[in-house]
């Protein structure tokens, strides 16, 4: 086998690792994990989880050994279309990932196993649903031992969800700074006093933080701790975490985001219908294998792509929009649309050890087809990005670009300029075309009926 590369994020777990061979991701199971892996398969746990769609399916493949560690098995998992991270998920996406983790732990206990990791990075969204991608997360359950992944679950899921629900949804951003989840003591400090009246948050966050403080400089003998937490208590713990997570709610309604969605859109119906038909004909003409919809709002135009069974990433800067988009996609069981949170003016960075554990947004591209509808004025005017920089940026993002130019005469742009000096001399259609023509070949250009806006279909110049 040629061109094998081990995945840079795959070094913490000694049970195995990920590598790419022949363009496909593989997972090696090390000999040291043989017993646990056999139990996972022989106990029927893997089968049970697979039938429910909770764990990524794989096939065992014959292959030469990779690296120095003894290989027991090599797995070829079903590929995930797009890797996303907890700091890009909406509230409900993070909540669903949390509940899935607990559900898997419940089932694992029934089969005499337990999760040794409860990392949010082990969950991905695949065909519209959260799924566990780390097949090597299980260990034999030992009667009497507490849940080894308890703290990680609280840091990766409970703390951010509680902060988002009880303080401010934007505190999710802390997850970019803390790759192993939000420290419990930090969450405890930030949560309002009234959360001490919530039994789950009191126990799993506030008392948890106090316990960490209390025992931080004391040596704890393992023998003292062993044999005191029986299976019922373990189930009770998982149940209690589940109830706590379940009770956390965040709704975009009733917040500052609310009127944005109830307000009528900026188009006359005729314009909207025309815009829809232009997007549809561009999709039908190119028939892309994947679409990135930037500034997707609640995903109206993403749906045109996902309805065509094209894997579509539906990005927006607004947590409320992403939340509504996810709820709608979940309700309609849309397998092809993945709503994600993204600030294009400050895209997801690469984080972790050596800056290679979690990829930046651009490292996960380029996409075949990029949509940037009603977006350019936000980048050019709200964020002062010059036109030539924009054109170069979009060229990096994808092969085809469907972009809407919104001129200064448009009511939305007038709103942006209402309280600021118009320093944007280069923001006009001629400059736009000149700059984008440097990087792209124009395939199509249409004015949207009943508006001053224009939609361009471009193909990247190589």
């Amino acid at each position, binding site marked *: 086998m040629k061109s094998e590369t081990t995945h840079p994020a795959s070094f913490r777990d000694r049970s195995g690792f990920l590598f790419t061979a022949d363009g496909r991701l593989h997972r090696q199971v090390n000999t040291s994990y043989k017993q646990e892996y056999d139990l996972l398969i022989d106990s029927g746990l893997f089968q049970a989880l697979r039938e429910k769609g909770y764990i990524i399916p794989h096939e065992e493949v014959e292959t030469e050994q990779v690296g120095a560690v003894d290989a027991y098995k090599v797995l070829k998992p079903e590929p995930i279309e797009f890797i996303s991270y907890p700091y890009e998920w909406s509230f409900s996406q993070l909540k669903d990932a949390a509940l899935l983790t607990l559900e898997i732990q419940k089932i694992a206990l029934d089969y005499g196993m337990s999760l040794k990791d409860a990392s949010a990075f082990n969950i991905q969204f695949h065909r519209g649903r959260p799924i566990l991608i780390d097949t090597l997360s299980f260990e034999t359950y030992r009667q009497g031992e507490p849940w080894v992944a308890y703290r990680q679950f609280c840091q990766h899921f409970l703390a951010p969800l509680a902060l988002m629900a009880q303080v401010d949804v934007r505190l999710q951003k802390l997850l970019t700074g803390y790759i192993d989840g939000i420290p419990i003591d930090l969450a405890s400090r930030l949560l309002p006093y009234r959360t001490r009246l919530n039994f789950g948050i009191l126990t799993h966050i506030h008392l*948890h933080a106090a316990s960490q403080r209390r025992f931080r400089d004391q040596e704890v003998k393992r023998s003292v701790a062993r044999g005191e937490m029986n299976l019922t208590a373990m189930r009770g713990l998982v149940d209690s975490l589940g109830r706590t997570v379940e009770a956390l709610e965040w709704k975009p309604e009733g917040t500052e985001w609310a009127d944005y969605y109830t307000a009528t859109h900026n188009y006359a119906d005729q314009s909207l219908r025309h815009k829809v038909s232009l997007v549809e004909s561009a999709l039908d003409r190119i028939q892309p294998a994947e679409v990135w919809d930037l500034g997707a709002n609640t995903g109206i135009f993403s749906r045109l792509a996902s309805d065509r069974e094209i894997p579509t990433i539906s990005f927006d800067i607004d947590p409320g929009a992403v939340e509504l988009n996810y709820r709608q996609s979940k309700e309609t069981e849309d397998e092809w649309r993945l709503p994600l949170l993204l600030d294009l003016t400050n895209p997801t960075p690469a984080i972790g050890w050596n800056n290679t554990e979690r990829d930046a947004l651009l490292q996960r591209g380029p996409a075949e087809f990029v949509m940037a509808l009603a977006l350019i004025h936000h980048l050019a005017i709200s964020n002062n990005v010059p036109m030539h920089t924009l054109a170069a940026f979009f060229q990096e993002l994808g092969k085809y670009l469907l972009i809407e130019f919104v001129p200064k005469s448009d009511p939305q742009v007038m709103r942006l300029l209402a309280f600021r000096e118009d320093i944007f001399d280069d923001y006009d259609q001629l400059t736009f075309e000149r700059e984008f023509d440097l990087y792209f070949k124009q395939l199509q250009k249409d004015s949207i009926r009943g508006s001053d806006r224009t939609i361009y279909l471009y193909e990247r110049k190589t």
Partner: protein
Amino acid sequence: MRYNKPANLLLVLVPTEVAMPAFVPIQPDALAFIDSLMNSPLLGRDLYLDPGSGSYLLQLLIAGLVGSAFMVRTFWSRIKAFFTRNPDEGEGSSQSNEE
């Protein structure tokens, strides 16, 4: 411990609400006060200590509580299930509560 640090650095390190006393001319006892804050668990982090032991022990501390709450709940849902149509649809895991 962070002795011998200039006072303005202390201002940076101490959260605003507790840094306020340091705006007045610093008295020796004020310095001691700030020092005690620096050694508080929130600030004076010792990098060799793992918060893992606290997480581990908390579970043992609450084990009885969450365990019995869970038992009561499971028991109650079975009673409810007995009087409703589908006795099998009890809440909670059905497989191994008898263990």
